[in-house]
């Protein structure tokens, strides 16, 4: 069993003529890698009608609807995070309720609002009520604002996690660019933040430090936009001194404990 906790799909609204090929490619590569569950999100229209990281309510709803369709088409293989934009607070909470009722198993917060902003509190509380994790996009050690997103830093996610100790948070893509070492030092003592290993970065030392900082029991395997680097990290982990049980934890068992019981069949 191998669970990818950070996958994405495109839709016909993504303004890419090859959207269907990219989706097919993810599923085919997943077969090759041995992925048994893609826990995925669709970030609005991926910039076609509203910005990727600031999606309009219409784009959010349409994206979640498309993901539900993919979940039904690939039942038992594709699972969903409900994407919301916290700036539209009522819409966000309504969307979360509706999509979780329809079978989604987590919430995805990207970069529409800083993680430590009060607007995220009702969403974090709702996640705890519903027993689902929040996958939160993080720029590892954000030193400045970057165009196109209001990215959060591990420190800001930590503030939110401390305010909501009953909510499970997944710090997105440790290898997704930025200073992963900084982020690991920040989140190491915060037990309700799990670490998603996805991202294109495959720096030597990153996985060793993640194991030292948080223990293998808080690591979640994932791919994000580059499945080759995800597979590379999985292979390299297998060469380290993890026990078979710890390795199974990273591959799937930790994910089973983060998502609602029985959600990942």
């Amino acid at each position, binding site marked *: 069993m191998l669970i990818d906790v950070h996958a994405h799909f495109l839709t016909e609204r993504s303004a890419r003529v090859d959207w269907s090929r990219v989706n097919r490619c993810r599923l085919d590569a997943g077969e090759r890698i041995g992925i048994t569950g893609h826990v995925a999100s669709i970030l609005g229209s991926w910039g076609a009608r509203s910005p990727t990281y600031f999606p309009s309510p219409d784009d959010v709803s349409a994206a979640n609807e498309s993901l539900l369709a993919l979940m039904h088409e690939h039942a038992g293989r594709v699972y969903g995070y409900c994407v919301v934009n916290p700036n539209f607070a009522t819409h966000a909470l309504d969307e979360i309720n509706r999509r979780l009722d329809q079978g989604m198993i987590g919430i995805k917060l990207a970069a529409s609002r800083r993680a430590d902003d009060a607007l995220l509190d009702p969403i974090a509380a709702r996640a705890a009520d519903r027993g689902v994790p929040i996958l939160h996009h993080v720029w590892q050690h954000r030193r400045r604002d970057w165009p196109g997103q209001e990215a959060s830093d591990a420190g800001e996610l930590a503030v939110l996690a401390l305010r909501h100790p009953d909510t499970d948070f997944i710090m997105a893509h440790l290898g997704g660019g930025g200073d992963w070492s900084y982020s690991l030092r920040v989140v190491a003592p915060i037990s309700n933040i799990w670490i998603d290993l996805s991202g294109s970065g495959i720096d*030597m030392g990153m996985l060793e430090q993640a194991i030292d900082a948080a223990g293998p029991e808080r690591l979640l395997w994932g791919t994000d936009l580059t*499945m080759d*680097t995800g597979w590379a990290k999985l292979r390299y982990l297998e060469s380290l001194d993890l026990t078979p049980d710890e390795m199974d934890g990273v591959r799937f068992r930790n994910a089973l404990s983060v998502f609602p019981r029985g959600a990942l069949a």
Partner: protein
Amino acid sequence: MITDVATFIGGYAFRHLDARSPEWLVAQMDRLGIDQAWVGHLPSILYRDPTPGTAALARALEPFRNRLCPVPTVNPDAPRWEDDLNFASLIDAPAVRVYPTWQGVESTSAVMRELVAAAAAIEMPLLFTVRLEDARQRHPRDVAPQLPAAAIRFGVRQHPDVRILVSNADRAFIEEVHFGLTPVEAARVLWDIGWVWGPPEDHLRTLIETVGLERFVFGTGMPLRIPDGAVAKLDLLDLVPEERELITAGNLRSWRRG
């Protein structure tokens, strides 16, 4: 046969590397079935005078010369850099590394033209590196720009016999150079696969179709990067063994023969 054209030994200025020795490199090569590696000296990238770094590299690799080939650094801004080039030839280096942006050398300058001509004259390939780390994570004092694609186009055009290998280029960089050269010029350039995205965007598969399988070689970037990345990229391509062998060794052999 697998030859890894992009490896290093030594420490890195901006982050600690536990894995920095030839012994570690060989252990990783054994784990992944890599037969031979071209090895650069990481600290020399920032040395004003890389000569002592090259001496240290040659000494460190001496016990492993059947597996590890030294690829010395040449800084064309250093006085008598020609000596370093000649020394590389003397120790049978398969190439020399040059880092214009880190060395503070304008990549389309007269001195770069001289280096290209001198390397071509002794049939010594030049190895350029586009990036060492993801731009988003670089240390605040690590401010050297990434290598511009123009540097490669310029270099290739300076001498009809120069051969250039480019490490850690992404799809956009490769396309900008490849389609900015004549087919004859482009045939003298090789690209390692280390920084090219695999699925689902599948940039490597696209480039193999558009630029050509014969232009790509195997490079891991270790110990800065986990070496499994390059192997995973190949495995996801599902090439027939003959095609895979071209990337892992055959293309390099053909290119070196000229």
